[in-house]
């Protein structure tokens, strides 16, 4: 994956030089370990600012919403699926985009690495399949597979779904993955247990809305939490308000979520917010055979119906 960078530079430089696009949206090196900053490059001289490594977990589709320019965007498998969703939902046009597809081998989980490394992390170096973490006078080497973001570890669409150019040959997709083990575990719980589990999960929430804002799907001009007449939700850290927020946030992503993991990565409190969206993803798959963002020609599940949809739950 490290070899992708030269190709990214070449493509970006060419596109900008030939004025095929007005800008390239990608990542630049962050100022702290395991963080890169989404950035925009507008001139061919600056393409070398762009980086690519296992710290590009932010979903760049989030930066395309309602843009009018011609844009080249670097896209992993999940990003590309969100780009598809964006196109379906008219948030950007296909012909505005040049998708630089990146076959992805997974992003690393900075929270996880921090918790596995007792000292302060000064530097993280990535070698093929190896993550070297350095502190002051100490070092630890992890296999990349053990420190992947959880959504990457169970990802089954690593290659971009749409692209104009790939930076490398497609990677092998993971098979025989059980994507919903955690969801099933909760489904099997008793009511009381479920409530305790979610109360505990959400007890750290500070309502910063990083999960919502990191998500490319959350682009409503006025989010339901900001509606005032009626005001659906209180603004305090009341547990019911917090629970309601997470429930509705997830529900708004129903049938659209690609499990890119941006929400969870963004959460400053390390809350497992994917546990909500994954339930819906599982349901959409089981009830309607749907996976989000796989094709430009299919309508998302809540925007369509079949006369014989399951309705056992209706009296």
């Amino acid at each position, binding site marked *: 994956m490290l070899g992708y960078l030269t190709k990214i530079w070449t493509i970006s430089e060419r596109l900008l030089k030939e004025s095929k696009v007005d800008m390239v949206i990608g990542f630049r090196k*962050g*100022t*702290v370990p395991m*963080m*890169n*900053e*989404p*950035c*925009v490059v507008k001139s061919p001289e600056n393409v070398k600012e762009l980086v690519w490594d296992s710290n590009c977990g*932010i979903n760049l589709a*989030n*930066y395309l919403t309602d843009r009018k320019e011609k844009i080249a965007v670097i896209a992993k498998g999940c990003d590309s699926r969100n780009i598809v969703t964006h196109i379906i939902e008219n948030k950007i046009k296909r012909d505005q985009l040049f998708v630089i597809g990146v076959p992805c081998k997974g992003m690393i989980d900075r*929270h996880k690495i*921090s*918790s596995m490394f007792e000292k*302060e992390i*000064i530097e993280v170096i990535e070698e093929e399949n190896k993550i070297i973490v350095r502190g002051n006078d100490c070092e630890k080497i992890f296999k990349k597979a053990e420190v992947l973001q959880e959504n990457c570890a169970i990802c089954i669409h690593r290659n971009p779904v749409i692209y104009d150019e790939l930076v490398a040959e497609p990677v092998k997709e993971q098979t025989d993955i059980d994507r919903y083990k955690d969801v099933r575990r909760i489904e099997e719980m008793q009511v009381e247990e479920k409530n305790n589990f979610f109360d505990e999960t959400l007890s*750290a929430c*500070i*309502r*910063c*809305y*990083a999960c*919502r*804002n*990191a998500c490319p799907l959350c682009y409503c001009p006025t989010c339901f939490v*900001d509606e005032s007449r009626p005001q659906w939700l*209180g*603004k*305090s*850290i*009341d547990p019911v308000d917090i629970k309601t927020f997470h429930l509705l946030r997830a529900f708004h992503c129903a049938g659209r979520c690609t499990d890119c993991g941006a929400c969870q*990565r*963004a*959460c*400053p*409190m*390390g809350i497992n917010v994917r546990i909500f969206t994954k339930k819906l993803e599982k349901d959409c798959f089981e009830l309607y055979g749907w996976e989000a963002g796989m094709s430009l020609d299919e309508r998302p599940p809540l925007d369509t119906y079949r006369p014989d949809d399951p309705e056992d739950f209706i009296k």
Partner: protein
Amino acid sequence: MKIIRIDKKNWAGGLEKLKGSYRLFGPVKDNEFHNFKRLDKDELPDFNYFNTRLSPKSIIYPQSEIMLEYELDENKENHHVMKESKKDYSQRVVIGIRPCDASAFLLVKRNFDTPEYKDPYWIRSYEATTFVGLACNNPQATCFCTSAGCGPFYEDGLDVLLVDAGDHFLAKIISSKGENLLEAAGWDTETDADEQIETMKQEAEARITSFVTTNKLKDKKIIDLFDAPFWEEVAFACINCGTCTYVCPTCWCFDIQDEAYGLCGIRMRNWDSCMFPLFTLHGSGHNPRSTNMQRVRQRFMHKLKYYVDKYNDGIQCVGCGRCIRLCPVNIDIRKICNMMNSYEVQVTSD
């Protein structure tokens, strides 16, 4: 100033004693990170931390706080008339607060304790609290306190400064509040360790590797910085979440909300963030800071320019580095501060 030696074997006992007359708050590890919590009986603060995930500001200034209450039942006397909610302002102590976070309260005090108006909730909480700081022997790479007006052994804002010296703590008494506290805990072994603390302080300061330059901020014109060309680029990555403002020890903005539960109700305040569009949305629908860029600019301009101009005492930042560590998209206040400080208006020649 007096220095008391506290042997670590006497630590837990002293704290238990304190719990008789104070409510104790201290850093506790919760899953992956530390946060300040009320310490129950026999619970000790865990000092094996760089800094807490959230700043301790919520001990003085809770994220959600009831201010007033009222009855809506028209058959009751004084219905619809607001009255102050009863609160517990008994003595409390924050054990193990980092010096940067304690000095942050002094910055925030300027906002809540003004010549014209006093915020009774904040002031009463603040005054009821004794701050026992834990000096930072090992600052992090994202700490830039020394160039943000404080430091790893900074004393302003503290009542006692604890220095971890291996098998014992050195407790430097800074105020009478602090003296009373140590007395109440039964720690009274005076020692002469000024030099030792000074040496440790210098060593800690030398470990700070990260800095901001702020010397020229004051001289710039607000309008020039406001119109500077770099804001679009600075704001590009920002997703406008409230993380930076909520984890910040010096951010104080809040919202006031009424909530009614049947026939009784409360007026409360909740932390708010300049990152949210709703923060400035007028009733008419007009929003003076409607774009992402305007809100990002507001945050940095407020901290690094407006505050500087208003109070003439440095920036509204103590260099704790939380916003840098926790920003989901790696927006780094150090970079922006330096950009602002070095910005010169381009004089166009035409």
